[in-house]
């Protein structure tokens, strides 16, 4: 069962994940062009991009615990999941800067250093940016495995920051981002609770 699943996963091209992962963007562009967004379309664009980025971030964080607990490996897809997250996060920041803030640079700069929700959000984005630019094979080789892994542990900081960015932007204490924050903490906790070495036949999984 597990072997069959892993075998099936190996046959899925990474490009298919990219194609599927860009569907939310295509739907958003379609809605924006056809007037299918709500009364405040800028808010909807920002929120949908931000949410989708968070979903891909959580998916990429789930890869290791899923492998350790079930032996099913999505490891091949993890880089693409991370880059999809960064794509949506980048568009989210772009929508905020261009549409919401109308490129009022001074106001944006003041806000980014002063407002907790923007400090959290921009902090997380800069971390994701660092991970994205070093996500290629060349960077991995140049940096060496140890340094590369250490840098990419930044995702453990970025993920909770993203949900705090959401929580701090709202007037009342909201349930949904709090649940996502809890989910992230569970995923991070599982890394500690279910340690390496992986119990499953790693060689078979990675072949």
């Amino acid at each position, binding site marked *: 069962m597990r072997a069959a699943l892993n075998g099936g996963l190996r046959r899925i091209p990474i490009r298919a994940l990219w194609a599927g992962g860009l569907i939310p963007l295509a739907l958003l562009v379609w809605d924006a062009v056809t007037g299918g967004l709500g*009364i*405040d*379309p800028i*808010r909807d664009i920002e929120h949908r991009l931000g949410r989708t980025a968070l979903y891909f971030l959580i998916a990429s964080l789930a890869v290791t615990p899923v492998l350790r607990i079930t032996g099913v490996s999505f490891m091949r897809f993890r880089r693409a999941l991370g880059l999809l997250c960064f794509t949506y996060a980048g568009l989210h920041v772009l929508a905020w800067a261009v549409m919401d*803030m109308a490129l009022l640079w001074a106001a944006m700069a003041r806000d980014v250093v002063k407002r*907790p929700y923007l400090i959290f959000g921009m902090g997380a984005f800069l971390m994701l940016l660092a991970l994205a630019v070093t996500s290629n094979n060349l960077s991995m080789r140049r940096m060496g495995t140890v340094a590369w892994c250490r840098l990419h542990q930044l995702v453990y900081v970025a993920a909770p920051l993203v949900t705090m960015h959401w929580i701090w*932007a709202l007037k*009342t204490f909201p349930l949904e981002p709090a649940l996502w924050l809890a989910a992230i903490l569970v995923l991070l906790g599982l890394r500690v609770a279910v340690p390496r070495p992986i119990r499953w036949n790693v060689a078979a999984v990675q072949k």
Partner: protein
Amino acid sequence: MPLRWSDVTPKNDYLNRRAFIAAGLAVAATPGWALTGKPSALSTDQKPNTLEEITNYNNFYEFGMDKTDPARHAGAMVTDPWAVEIGGMVDRPGSYGVDDLAPANALEERIYRLRCVEAWSMVIPWIGVPLASVLDRAGVQPGAKFVAFETLYRPEQMRGQSRPILDWPYKEGLRLDEAMHPLTILATGLYGDVLPNQNGAPIRLVVPWKYGFKSIKSIVKITLTDSRPMSTWEQMQPSEYGFYANVNPQVDHPRWSQATERRIGAGLFGGREETLMFNGYGDQVASLYAGMDLAKDY
């Protein structure tokens, strides 16, 4: 799915229901329920937002926290019969009907800017009467200094009230001179028709120089008092929401800037506009706050 005005349409239903109850027999309702208000010099000449925008982008947490929740769920609120209990330091306390407080021949159209504390804005053509006329009718006693307001509490019709998002029922308050100011109205209509439920039917406060949350909706209680009443948002987060809540670009919300605002309906690249002191009503109301430190009394 985006919600359009045509999708909402519990309107005909509730209009019919109102007419049925009010008249005691079924009548063709819609034409009879149009409201007209005399034009007012206090109206802005800015272009009002569309009815669709005004009725599908609402903060009315009694029906849910999303901007589209009120349009979706406010149809469940029964607004007829309706009574407003006026009490406290008044000569004629009692239960008043909406038509007593806002009779058809007294209605005025007031096209006002609305600035939300969330840094967006609209222009809305309200129909209503000066709050001062209502308070005069009840007879304010000399010692009264403040006016307290309360929204309907009816969780079986207001689904948001079944969760403790805020301390229900919603409460607001004004200083008496703010309440008596000619700009302050009780609105019963919008765009030539009775107020849609999601906008605070059947009667709501509109104070155009204060952040929108001060303009309490679906009012059932007005109390004149000599001590400053606590308002719902102030009670929940006093460091972020003050009693006065005057629109003030120089005093930021602790978590976001109030210097600029985004006009709903301006489009994807409409940009932002500068927020004006007292939402642009400074000429009329700044004197109310002479000598006060508005950074402290925010």
